[in-house]
């Protein structure tokens, strides 16, 4: 059996033509974006749940199914809002590979092109499904590099502990061990004297950040760790009337400012933000802190 390099009698393009086309594609990719996208059969990424498809939507009947029916059919959700009125299932598929022209990958794997699938379910106060929606995020042309974190942020807009969330943002919390009763003077005074950044104040250079979300309600500052369920009690919950002061200090993660709060019993906490500004959060908290009685 021989392979006809000059084309077939059925009129198929000649192999030489394919080579020229491929060469032109590579040259064009190199001159423009520098990337070549190779579509692959869609497959689930490692660690992704695999029981979520567009057909899963049809399993859930609005007005009939309750949260318990949803969980019995689809299993544990991937995310839930603090008030449990919204739950979300997600999966991640790889839909292609990307080759970057002229970049040495050191033999490492080619970057995957992911596509996230979401099934968002809204429930009423009786726990009955009112709405369900299946969406896909990430295409060849509009790629997403990581899990779309805004999906989680969207769950943080209702209420927590029966109170409306008035502001929320992704944040890194630096708990300050050793701050117990060891602060000889006001945190804010120290910062304003230029002794620096507030971390030394809390004995914090060695401490590790805890990543999560800061949520402010009318009475409380709450912090939820990324690893915990949003319907669990917050990892940190500080009532504003337990705070002595609030101010800004140097961020440890970026060039901006971070928020520092001190409780009346001399516990310090620092928060680095990703979304909202530290200044606006500080203003909001300062407006809530009751002035300390002189002599107390």
């Amino acid at each position: 059996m021989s392979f006809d390099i000059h084309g077939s009698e059925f009129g198929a393009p000649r192999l030489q033509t394919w080579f020229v086309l491929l060469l032109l594609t590579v040259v064009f990719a190199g001159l423009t974006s520098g990337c070549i996208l190779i579509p692959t059969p869609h497959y689930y990424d490692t660690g992704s749940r695999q029981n979520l498809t567009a057909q899963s939507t049809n399993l859930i009947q609005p007005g009939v199914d309750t949260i318990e029916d949803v969980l019995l059919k689809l299993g544990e959700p991937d995310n839930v809002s603090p008030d449990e009125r919204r739950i979300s299932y997600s999966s991640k598929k790889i839909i292609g590979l990307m080759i970057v022209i002229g970049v040495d990958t050191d033999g490492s794997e080619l970057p995957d092109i992911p596509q996230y699938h979401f099934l968002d379910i809204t429930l009423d106060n009786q726990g009955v499904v009112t709405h369900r929606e299946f969406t896909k995020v990430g295409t060849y042309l509009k790629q997403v590099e990581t899990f779309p974190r805004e999906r989680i942020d969207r769950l943080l807009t209702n209420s927590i502990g029966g109170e409306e969330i008035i502001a929320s943002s992704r944040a890194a919390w630096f708990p300050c061990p050793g701050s117990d009763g060891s602060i000889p003077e006001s945190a804010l005074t120290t910062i304003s004297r230029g002794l620096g950044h507030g971390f030394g104040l809390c004995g914090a250079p060695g401490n590790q950040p805890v990543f999560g979300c800061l949520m402010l309600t009318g009475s409380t500052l709450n912090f939820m760790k990324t690893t915990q369920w949003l319907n669990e009690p917050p990892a940190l919950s500080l009532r504003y009337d337990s705070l002595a002061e609030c101010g800004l200090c140097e961020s440890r993660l970026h060039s901006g400012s971070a928020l520092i709060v001190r409780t009346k019993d001399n516990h310090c906490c620092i928060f680095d933000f990703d979304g909202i500004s530290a200044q606006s959060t500080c203003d909001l908290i300062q407006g809530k802190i009751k002035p300390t009685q002189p002599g107390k």
Partner: protein
Amino acid sequence: MKTKFLAVLILTLTLVGCVTGPSKGRADLLNFLADNQTTKEEVILNLGQPSGRFESEKILTYRLGYESGNKGCYVVERVSSWSGEPFWANARYSLVLVFDGQNILRKHSLVEVLR
């Protein structure tokens, strides 16, 4: 003699490489579950702390790994990345348990999450 010793040493080392730890999975792990009989206390005593709690702990969920060798299941912890991305790599099933007001198991289902 030397050759024999070397042969035994190589054989021993080879076999040591094949030794695996005790199996984690139990084929009878969920046999104690019976709707309208099993209590929440019994569930926690048998399976430990759940990976998720919903509706004021009326619904508990567990993640279960699967061992094909002995067709057994074992409880695994919930894992998610710092970005909030869920991670099911170690779990194959999601066990959902629904209790009534007296903490008696009313319904349950074992959902295959990884196929």
